[in-house]
């Protein structure tokens, strides 16, 4: 009894094996397209485990106007063929053949005639619309009327260049005018710049801060000119006093600014003689162009 049953089981297995081998001899397995639900516009559809014969496939570069987006989600070898997972998104409803969006990686053409070795069968998919039939679509936007030369982008660039050029013209013009104004106001030499200051100081019109700054600025100028930057402060003014040009000048300035009864006849021209050929900005510390009124001594008076 048991022997008869085993014989029956062996016969069934042999029949199944024969059937499978006959299927395999057909050359190409028919696309095992599952029967998924039909994706709607904009929603992804997926075809899995699709075995396609021939060399490996890839997605063709897409034209922006194509109504279908195709992507190979996964690929793996399957004997001499390849097994693919294909993902697609339809942008318009309709029926499409995914084969149209594929090409061989090795550049060989795709054979479409059935039965030919390496031929690719059609991979039909459908994209449905969720809109009710009869809905009126909006009109597509009409092309803008762009001026004749070169299109919108060129017009933008040209406008930007013009705007920057205009700004530069305005800025450079203002700068040139300002330079001209300053040049008109600026004295030609340091002596010319100092003369009104000294005369105002003689007339008692300079505040104590300005007198202080005038004196120390000139000390700083001579210190730089005689290269005494690294001289000890205690010895600096002694060294300046020894100099044939700076000495008499600073001494008369000291006498005038510090003596209880300064000498009345100050030779301003002689005092300023060493500065006659110097540029007006030779003493950068000297910045007394906007003098405070004598009443500015209120701060000191309040002490």
């Amino acid at each position, binding site marked *: 009894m048991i022997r008869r049953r085993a014989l029956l089981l062996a016969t069934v297995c042999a029949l199944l094996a024969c059937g499978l081998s006959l299927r395999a001899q057909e050359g190409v397995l028919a696309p095992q397209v599952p029967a998924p639900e039909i994706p709607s516009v904009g929603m992804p559809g997926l075809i899995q485990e699709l075995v396609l014969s021939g060399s490996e496939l890839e997605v063709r570069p897409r034209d922006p106007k194509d109504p279908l987006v195709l992507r190979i989600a996964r690929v793996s070898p399957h004997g001499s063929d390849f097994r693919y997972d294909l993902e697609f998104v339809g942008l318009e409803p309709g029926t499409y053949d995914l084969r149209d969006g594929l090409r061989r990686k090795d550049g060989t053409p795709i054979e479409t005639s059935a039965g030919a070795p390496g031929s690719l069968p059609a991979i039909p998919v459908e994209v449905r619309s969720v809109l009710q039939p009869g809905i009126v679509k909006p009109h597509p936007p009409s092309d803008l009327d762009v001026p004749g030369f070169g299109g919108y982008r060129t017009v933008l660039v040209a406008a930007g260049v013009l705007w920057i050029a205009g700004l530069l013209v305005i800025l450079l013009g203002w700068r040139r005018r300002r330079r001209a104004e300053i040049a008109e106001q600026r004295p030609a030499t340091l002596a010319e710049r100092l003369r009104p200051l000294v005369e105002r100081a003689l007339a008692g019109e300079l505040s*104590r801060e300005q007198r202080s700054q005038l*004196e120390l600025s000139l000390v700083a100028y001579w210190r730089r000119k005689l290269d005494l930057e690294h001289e000890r*402060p205690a010895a*600096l*003014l002694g060294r300046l006093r020894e100099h044939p040009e700076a000495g008499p000048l600073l001494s008369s300035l000291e006498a005038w600014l510090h*003596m209880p009864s300064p000498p009345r006849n100050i030779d301003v021209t002689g005092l300023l003689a060493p500065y006659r050929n110097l540029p007006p900005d030779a003493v950068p510390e000297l910045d007394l162009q906007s003098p405070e009124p004598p009443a500015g001594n209120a701060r000191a008076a309040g002490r």
Partner: protein
Amino acid sequence: MTQNPAQLSRDDFQKTEAFIRAVRQRVATVVVGQDVVVERLLIALFTGGHILLQGVPGLAKTLLISVLSKSIDLDFARIQFTIDLLPSDILGSEILDQRTNEFRVRKGPIFTNLLLADEINRAAPKVQGALLEAMQERKVTIGNETFRLPAPFLVIATQNPVEQSGTFELPEAQLDRFMLVHRLEYPSPEEEREILIRNSALGVQRQDGGAIVQTEFDVLKKEPVGSTNELVAAMEAVHRVHVSETFVEHVVDLVNRSRVHKSIELGCSPRAGIALIKAARARALMHGRHYTIPEDLFALAEDVMLHRMRLKYEAIAEGVNGKQIVAELLRSLGGGPLEAKHEMARA
């Protein structure tokens, strides 16, 4: 400027000049060089300030002060500060007189005209405090009695800048009471040669059947070249030296710059400005002028300001020292309005 209510007369000016010249000549017979130190000591004496001398041992500090006191006929006392010194050792104390069975005041060495506080940083802070308080108030309380210190009264303290072990550094508040802190430098080669020649010429002095090798102290002339009256006249003359508004402005500018400098944590107090003006007046007189000039300010700034400033930690770590900062402050004078400096400091 209204700091000089009465102008200095030519006669007073000449007398003071002669007195100063005589004192300097007398000092020069014993001490070689050190003109700047002598000048600073006289400035302190004429202005009633006190002076701290910083220098290594052997720079004739004690000799200098001895000869100065003998030149002007002033009392002189010297205290060697040590760790075990007590305030009563300086100020004095009450002692019990066993004959009368009553307490009697014994005045300390502070009751003198010139007091040399040698190595002041070796004493404990309470001793330093007692001395510095007496310096400020010019009076001393012993028991229940208060005594005024003699006039003139000048403390000349010394401090060794290199040997710091077992010392108590004077805090800024106490350093501020010294009008001047002068850092002594080594003599020049010429001066050093002269010192050696003079020292070699000192002989041996027979004494009590024996003999001692003479030192410079043994050849000090006893007769003064100036009297206390002349000193008082010189002090009065200093107060009549003219200080211009411009000079005051220089001082204000300098002191303010010390408060906004990026490397200074604690700038100079107004006392620094006061000391600068006082010292500048005395220096002007000693240089034959009856008015101050920027040279006085530049010469005295380091001695007056350096000990009144505290540098920032970052500046010290970068190797910046106070002398450089004072030099920088002086160089910056006249360089633009102060407001701009304030803005820079705030930024």
